[in-house]
């Protein structure tokens, strides 16, 4: 008798995906029993280019293009590593502004993820609603940095633009609005019966598995694992601006959504605190010299921990730039979660990881 399984491909081109990644699910009826994945479609060779093609001061703009979604975290991590190697101290104001943009980016990225999860769960109206509201954040990002996605806001020694009081007012106003909307989604995610059918208990990762598979970011926090790099570094004053770790116990899609929503709300608070207590001073300190030595820098990108290992040898060309991105670390966990789920849920589960393969493959 023949085998009773079917192979369902998801990707590399598929409507539920924004980027090429290929999953091949072996399914019984529609129940997934094994997963085979290919994540290397987006490999461009950035790590090598950073050591052969670009001088160290341009790399900040290059690594931002590792990924458009946490571009800011990438350039921030890289710059921080270089600043560490150069040994200069930057002003408090520029640190605050960096956090501001980092958190704005987190808000828009989380909103994108939520809306994409809803779209993949077949809830088009919710997708439209969140994407519509996301424009509020995009607007202020554009005001602040001059572009909607690739901010190119951070350079070695500080930030590129100052913030004016009008912008600051606008930010506060828009974020207030976003917070109200976020509370609205919270209600929707908990109370809509069709969303509960799609999200509750689906794609769950247990705490122990999260530990075992070294999950990070919202994925791990939704399973109750306390890991948030903002809690583990002293480079930027996250405590001062009111960072609070958000966790959940269930580990399913719903938990991930709620963690993201809570983080949005927490980030909004942080932004407000930053704008209230913004120190006076310059936004840029000129740092001299060429990087020498090695540095490991980690930051919390919207999707989890991002790590840069930079090694310089005192010339303008670096010796090694190692980028360890959040999705990269989560891939073992992804495959694990898919097994046993229904194919019908696969796109939504995938979106709820908020995967970004452009950084995975670099």
């Amino acid at each position: 008798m023949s085998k009773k399984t079917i192979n369902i491909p998801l990707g590399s081109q598929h409507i539920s995906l924004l980027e090429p990644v290929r999953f091949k699910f072996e399914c019984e009826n529609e129940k997934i029993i094994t997963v085979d994945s290919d994540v290397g479609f987006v490999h461009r060779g950035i790590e090598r280019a950073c050591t052969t093609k670009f001088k160290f001061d341009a790399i900040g703009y290059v690594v931002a293009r590792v990924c458009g979604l946490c571009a800011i975290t990438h350039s921030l991590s890289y710059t921080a590593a270089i600043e560490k190697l150069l040994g200069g101290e930057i002003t408090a104001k520029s640190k605050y502004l960096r956090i501001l943009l980092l958190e704005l980016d987190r808000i828009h990225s989380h909103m994108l993820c939520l809306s994409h999860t809803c779209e993949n769960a077949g809830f088009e109206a919710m997708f439209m609603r969140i994407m519509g509201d996301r424009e509020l954040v995009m607007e202020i990002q554009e005001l602040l940095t001059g572009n909607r996605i690739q901010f190119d806001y951070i350079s070695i020694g500080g930030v590129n633009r100052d913030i004016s009081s009008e912008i600051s007012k606008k930010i506060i106003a828009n974020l207030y609005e976003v917070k109200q909307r976020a509370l609205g989604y919270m209600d929707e995610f908990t109370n809509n019966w069709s969303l509960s059918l799609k999200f509750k208990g689906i794609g769950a990762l247990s705490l122990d598995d999260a530990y075992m598979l070294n999950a990070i970011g919202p994925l791990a926090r939704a399973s109750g694992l306390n890991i948030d790099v903002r809690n583990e570094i002293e480079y930027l004053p996250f405590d001062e601006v009111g960072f609070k770790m958000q966790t959940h116990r269930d580990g399913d899609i719903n938990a991930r959504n709620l963690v993201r929503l809570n983080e949005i709300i927490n980030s909004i608070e942080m932004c407000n605190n930053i704008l209230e207590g913004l120190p006076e001073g310059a936004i840029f300190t000129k740092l001299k010299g060429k990087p020498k030595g090695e540095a490991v820098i980690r930051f919390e990108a919207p999707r989890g921990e991002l790590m840069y290992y930079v090694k310089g040898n005192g010339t303008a060309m670096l010796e090694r730039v190692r980028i360890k991105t959040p999705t990269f670390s989560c891939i073992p966990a992804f495959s694990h979660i898919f097994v046993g789920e229904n194919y019908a849920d696969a796109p939504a589960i995938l979106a709820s990881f908020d995967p970004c393969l452009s950084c995975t493959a670099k």
Partner: protein
Amino acid sequence: MSIYSTLIAAPLLFAVLVFVGTRRVRDVLSAIFIVILGALSLSNIFSFNAPLEMSLPETFHVLFILIDVAVLAYFLWQGALLKHAYVIFFALVQILLYGAVMFLSPSIVSGDIFVDDISAVMLLVINIVGGIIIVYALEYIENEEFTSLKKNGFIAMLFFFLAVMNFIVCTNNIEIFFLLFELTTLCSYILIAYRGDALSRKNALQALWMNQIGGIAILAALIFSILQYDTVYFDVLIANSNPLYLLPIVLLAIAAFVKGASIPFDKWLLGAMVAPTPVSAILHSATMVKIAPYLMLKLAPAMSGFVSLTITLIGTFVFFSASLLALSKDYFKEILGLSTIALLGLMMALAAIGTPEAVTACLVLIVFHAISKALLFLQAGILEKNFHLKYVDDINGLVNHAPLVVFFIVIGFASLTLPPFGAFIAKFMAIESIAGEIIHNPLYAFALIFLALGSVFLTLLYFKVVTKLFAKDADVKSRHVEISKFYTIPSFLLVFLLLIGMYISFERAFLSSLEIVVPLVLIALIPALFSLLLFKKAHRVKEYNCGEKDDIQLSMYYFHMPRRVQITLTILATLGMWILLLGTIV
């Protein structure tokens, strides 16, 4: 009269004649016999005007008693030989009961032979469809590895079967009916055990003991009938039946359920699959199981509200649950088998309703089910013999190699579900008649639900199979396999019968002409468009596969039916039977 005696006697004669001469001679002779039988049954239906009733001479009765005793003794012997406790036990019970019947002497007598239009229709089905299957069997059996004597015996057995069936639909005497009932049991026993291996033997014995339960029920019915109504004749029994003393009727109905392999007696029919495919074909379509709805139709006028309702509910429930169970199967013949069981349930339910509309529906269903099932079983045989395929999972993309077989299978399944075919019309009328009953008794609403769900399950089932056939590659060069003419001609004949049936339903105005013509045109349009080869020149591309190149692996949904579902359904059906029995006694 002469027609009926010929119809009964001739096949007996043919059964002997097939042993004469070479294969060639046998084939030609059989073909001629079949044409004769078909012609007789046809002429009968055209010349038929009034029910005919007559008696047989006393010598026959003595002969019948002797045969009866011999058959029962044979069962006992087989049981003892093969050490099967059930068989021995039921044979003994039957012998005892039969003895009891012999001692009772009923006083009201009537004709032994009774032919009405229902019988006429049955004769038609038995002889024509059965005949076509025998033609097919002529070739089929040659592809088996048996001695020629055994092969001829096979054909002879089929003819004998026809004779018994022809007799059974003409008899009015319950004693004779019992004898013939036992004879069909005997026939099926021998045919199922035909291959002679362990599995065949086991299944044959299973069929034997289950069918013996039916025999016991008939004997019990006989005893009660004699005690209560003082008769052994159907017509008297039915005419005099008192709604308070329906026990004989109900017992006969239970015998019908046994023959119709209704759940919980379904195992024997499924076990019969081990026999050569023509046996399954003939059992499922023209003979044996059709005794069930026939008997039910005969009894219907005698049924009171309770009995008729319960039988309807049981029948529709069987329809529902057998189709549900079939969903989880992937052995092609087993699927066909369960769908037969389901449809038999429906036929019996319709018969039990007993309104003229329901009776017509039942008859239409009997006829078309016979044709379609025969067609499908023939294809199952071809698949096994020519393609070595048994499981629906393996028939993926058959259209690439055997478009003709696929055509037959599709027609077969379509004719069981879709307009404008006969079986569809029957289902249609079934819904109408049940809907009519709901007005009187809301409990019929359950029957309706079972019917609706069951027919959807069946559709699902059929198209689950059909769809497998179609997965055609964009570029594979097809490989055609030659199929013997002996296989295709019977199939074409059956398709032709379907068309005639359609014409008749058109004549009889079961549906309006528009309602017949439109779907027919629709269905006919497909091959027409095809043959135009309109799309030869259009651009062809590969299937979308997310831009990937790896081959995809296809497989159907399968429905995992937990064992407890199966058990629950069986228990419920059994419960229904007991309610029926006890309800009548009380």
